[in-house]
């Protein structure tokens, strides 16, 4: 056995950050898929079932006057990003609690605990893209040049979710009630966001206020891939400003609280 310390290359902070982020993200994905038989199918099945329910209600039962056709594609373009948002924000409430022992014994950069959730849910979101492609082909929805906005939409949504996660994750450690409050707010937000309808379906005047929900602008960017007239420049600008502001607040809150969080977990 060797006793002499083997010289080890010191790695930069960025490298360490990337490594720990990826280790935890892949761990989360692996745990989720190694313990369930259907694995990948689950992350697709969830939005699919919801999309079919709303499609059935709004096209087969009542006459649809909202959104655009093919409605199932319109729905999925809103539902898939919603699943990412809902999953990541919901899980952020347990970002520290779930891995308390690891948080207590390693000194990886603390924001990794939030960002790995955004990343693992984001990967599931990307993995569900084939679903919308298949439905677009079946129902003949045509791709527009608006698809160029897709990377912007993903980036804005990532900024928004990271910001919210940085606010929620440390606060929940001290205010446990917040976990349930967040669940409740998310349910409200589902109907408060243009997912089963479009921003343009709202009564005049209300659409401006609805734009202050950053999801409105972000979803309009996603929908531009198939429905160009869903693109709402004003909503997008507001969404970008709101997302950046939330990220800024998140960084401040997280910095202030991390010291206390480490004592409490």
């Amino acid at each position, binding site marked *: 056995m060797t006793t002499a310390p083997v010289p*080890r290359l010191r790695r*930069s902070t960025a490298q360490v950050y990337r490594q720990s982020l990826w280790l935890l993200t892949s761990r989360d994905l692996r745990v989720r898929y190694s313990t369930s038989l259907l694995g990948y199918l689950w992350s697709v099945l969830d939005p699919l079932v919801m999309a079919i329910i709303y499609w059935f209600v709004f096209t087969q039962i009542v006459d649809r006057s909202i959104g655009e056709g093919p409605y199932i594609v319109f729905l999925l373009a809103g539902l898939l990003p919603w699943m990412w948002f809902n999953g990541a924000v919901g899980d952020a409430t347990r970002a520290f609690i779930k891995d308390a022992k690891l948080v207590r014994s390693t000194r990886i950069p603390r924001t990794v605990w939030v960002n790995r959730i955004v990343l693992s849910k984001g990967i599931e979101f990307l993995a569900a893209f084939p679903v919308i492609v298949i439905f677009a082909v079946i129902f003949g929805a045509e791709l527009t040049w608006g698809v160029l906005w897709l990377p912007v939409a993903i980036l804005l949504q990532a900024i928004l979710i990271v910001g919210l996660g940085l606010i929620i994750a440390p606060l929940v450690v001290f205010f446990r009630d917040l976990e349930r409050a967040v669940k409740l707010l998310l349910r409200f937000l589902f109907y408060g966001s243009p997912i089963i309808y479009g921003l343009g379906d709202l009564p005049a005047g209300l659409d401006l206020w609805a734009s202050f929900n950053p999801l409105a602008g972000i979803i309009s960017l996603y929908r531009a891939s198939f429905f160009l007239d869903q693109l709402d420049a004003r909503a997008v600008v507001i969404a970008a400003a709101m997302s950046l502001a939330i990220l800024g607040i998140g960084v401040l809150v997280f910095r202030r609280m991390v010291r206390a969080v480490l004592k409490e977990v």
Partner: protein
Amino acid sequence: MSMDDTGFPHDSGLPNGGVPATGAGAGAAVIQVTGAGIRFRRNRRGRRSFKDLLAGSQRRSRPDEFWALRDVTVSVRAGEAIGVVGRNGQGKSTLLKLVAGVMLADEGSVVVHGGVAPLIEITGGFVDDLTVRENLYLTAGLHGMSKADIDARYDEIIDFAELRDFIGTPYKHLSSGMKVRLAFSVISRLEEPILLVDEVLAVGDKGFRDKCYQRIDELLAGGRTLFFVSHNERDLKRFCTRGLYLDGGLLKLDAPIADVLAAYNRDYGASNA
């Protein structure tokens, strides 16, 4: 030095195994704790409720706090072996956690040059549903080992833990002794210049404990710096040359280990050997 809240409170450190490469020579401190203090809330159950959040700052119930450590100043040079002594709840583990960087001081500063291999809550990082192999890569990676380093040491770690036949076994099916073996094996192979040990050696059977001791001896011979928390006088005398005596969160004595143990036994009478 102000610590970066979101990142590492530690300096990225020296290029290799704890030997200071700077002109300062052998006397340079690898761990510099200056006036460090940290406070906790007395009742851990006292989580604030939603009502407190909504109530004004005056009406907010402020849980009483106490200093677990206060005004601790210690300077550790490369290659020193330090034993931390004190009764339960006097701040020994907290001091180790500050050095490990898993907690951040409320006042003062803790500067550590070089990486730390913390044998603290060592089995905590493992995931029940993943295999021994997957857990090994995960834990070693989170403690800063690169993939290539882990590949190179993989066999050594598995053999030391005596888990060759259980590589594909989910972690939850291991016995508690095996879990500790895996954990010690991974952390003690991190090749970091500083080793922190917090009473983990009490677990495991005697055969493995002897192996652990031997491994710590090897690391010390290799020039590592050791920070050792224990109630076992024999272990303290075996490994350490210098002792820190913590009492009531204050550093009561910083002297050769024999003097520290003598002072501790004088104060509390009992001999734990």
